[in-house]
C-alpha cells in the first residue's frame, strides 16, 4: 500500500463512464450560456435530509461532476442555478425569497419536493425562471442528468 496520498488510489478507476439521462421535462427553453460551466447553489427549505445526502453523494468520485463543468458554490451570488430542496416550511419562505434576490442573471430555479403531502405545509412562493420541478428523492444520476440538460452539455464525459 502506498504511503503517499497523491499516489493512493491512482489505479482505482472510480469515475463512471455512462450516460446520465433525466426524464424530467424542462419547463423553459435553455440557452447555451451555461455550456462551459454551471454553478449550483443548494438551499434546504424543509427537506427530510435524504436530498441533502443525495447532493453529498453527487459530489462522490463516481459521478465526478467537475468533469462536466458543474460545481456547487458557497454563495448564491456566484450561482447559475438555485436548487431548492424539500417541501417548504413556513419559516423558510422569507429566507428563500431573500436568496433568490441574490442570484445574478441569468439564473434558473429547480425544486425537488421530497414530501408533497407534508401536512400543515405551505406552497412554494412564486419562483422566477422555474425550469424544473421534481418530486420524491431522485438519485444523483437523475439530478446530474437534469443539470446536464440545463447546461446543454454533452451527457458523456467531455
Amino acid at each position: 500500500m502506498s504511503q503517499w496520498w497523491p499516489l493512493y488510489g491512482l489505479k482505482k478507476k472510480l469515475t463512471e463512464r455512462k450516460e446520465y439521462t433525466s426524464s424530467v421535462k424542462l419547463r423553459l427553453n435553455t440557452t447555451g450560456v451555461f455550456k462551459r460551466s454551471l454553478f449550483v447553489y443548494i438551499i434546504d427549505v424543509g427537506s427530510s435530509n435524504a436530498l441533502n445526502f443525495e447532493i453529498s453523494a453527487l459530489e462522490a468520485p463516481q459521478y465526478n461532476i467537475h468533469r462536466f463543468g458543474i460545481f456547487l458554490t458557497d454563495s448564491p451570488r456566484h450561482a447559475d442555478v438555485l436548487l431548492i430542496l424539500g417541501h417548504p416550511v413556513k419559516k423558510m419562505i422569507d429566507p428563500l425569497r431573500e436568496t433568490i434576490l441574490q442570484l445574478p442573471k441569468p439564473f434558473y430555479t429547480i425544486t425537488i419536493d421530497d414530501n408533497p403531502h407534508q401536512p400543515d405545509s405551505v406552497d412554494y412562493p412564486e419562483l422566477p425562471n422555474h425550469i424544473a420541478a421534481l418530486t420524491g428523492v431522485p438519485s444523483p444520476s437523475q439530478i446530474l442528468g437534469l443539470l446536464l440538460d440545463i447546461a446543454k452539455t454533452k451527457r458523456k464525459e467531455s
Partner: protein
Amino acid sequence: MKVLIGVIATNKSEQLFILDNGQPVLVQANGDNLEEKFGNYPILKQHPLKINDEPMKGPGVFRFRYGPVTAGVREAGCFHLYTYGEKILRATIDISWKQREIAKAMQDKSPETALMMAERVCSNFAISHSVAFGRAVEMALDAVPSLPTKNWRTLLIESERIYNHLYVIYKLASAAAQKVLAAHVSALFEEALRLNENLTGSRYLMGINNIGRLNRMPTVTDIQKIAHGYRELAKKFTELYKHSLKNYNYLDRLHSAGTLTPAQADKLGLTGPSLRACGVMDDLNDATEHLISLPVITQKEGDALARMEVRAEEIVNSCRYLVDHLRASDSWNEAGKNDTEFAKTGGTGYVVVNSPSGALGYYVEVKESKMQRVEIFTPSYPGMHAVSHALEGLIFTDFPFVFESFGVHFADAAS
C-alpha cells in the same frame, strides 16, 4: 445504566420514558429530585427550540448569526455565535427553522400512513424511525412480528449505520481539507447507498418496513453479491482508515476538538457513538433485538477524533455482521410467514432503537386502529445540546469538526 429518553406529559401527571439497562420503561414521575436523578430532565421537559439561549455580554462581545441559509451547514438551522473575535464564547442553536410537527400530524392517521410519515422525519434515519414506530405500534396492538421480519429489521438498521457513519467521516475529512481521504470515503458512502438499493430497492431503506411485517423480503438471489459488496466495503474502508491514522495533520485537527466529559454527556442525556467516545459503555445494543451481540466500541478522550474512531470501528463491525447474516438469510424466509395478527385495536407502546446517532424513542397511543398520540424522542436533540456546549471556548475553524463529529441533523432534532 439509566438514561432519560423523554418526558411525556398527560393531563394529570407526567411519565418518564427511561432506558433502563437497555430496556425501555415508563415510570410515573413522582417529583422526587428529578433534576438530580436525571441531569437532562429540565431540557426534555421544557424542550426549548433555541438551545443554550442565554445572551452573553462583555467587552467587544457581539452576536454572529450563521444560518438558516448557509453552504457550510446545508440544512435549515441557525447558529447564534457569541464572540469577541476568534473564539466562540457561546453557541445558541435554533432548530425551529426545520420544524414540521410531524408527530402532531400523525394523529388520527392509520398506523401504516403514520409509519410513512415517520420515515420522513429524518430520512437518513428512515429505517430506525420506521422500526421504532412500527415496534411501538406492535407493542400497543399486542402483535409479534415474524422471525424473518425481526431479523431483517436488525440487518437494515446496521446498513443504515454503515452509510451514516461513512458520511460523518467524509464530512470530517472534508472539513480537515483531507481531499484525497474525503474523496475515497465519499466513494464508499455512495457504494453503501447503492448496496442499500440493491438490497431493498431504496437507497435510504424507505418503504420496506411496515407494521408487523416487511413490505417485501429482499430477494435471495442477489444476497451473495450484496454480502460480497459489504465485505469489499469493509476491506477498502479498513485500508483507508489505517492510512488516515498515519496522517498527523488530520489527527491533530480532530484531537481535542469539542471535548465532552462523561459527566457532561450524562447531564445532556447524550447517547450513541458520541457518548461511547467519552468512555461510557452504554447498553443501547440491548434495545434492538440482535441476532448476536455486537461489540460496544468506546474511546476515552471524548473529542472529535474519539467520535470518529468509534464510528470507524462500528462501520467495520456492522459490515462483518451483515456479511455473516446475509449469507444465512435464505433460511429465514423459510422459517416463518411475513404476516402478523393484531390482537387489539388500541393500546400504548414505547420502544427505543439504536439509531446511528444514538437512542431513538417512540411513544404511541393507538385507539380504534388510529394513532391518538405520538411522541418522538430523537438522538439529535440532546446531540444539538452537546454541540452547543462543546463549541464553547473553541475557535471558528473548529466549528465543522465539532458539528459534523456528533452526527446530528436539524431534521431529526426538530421533528
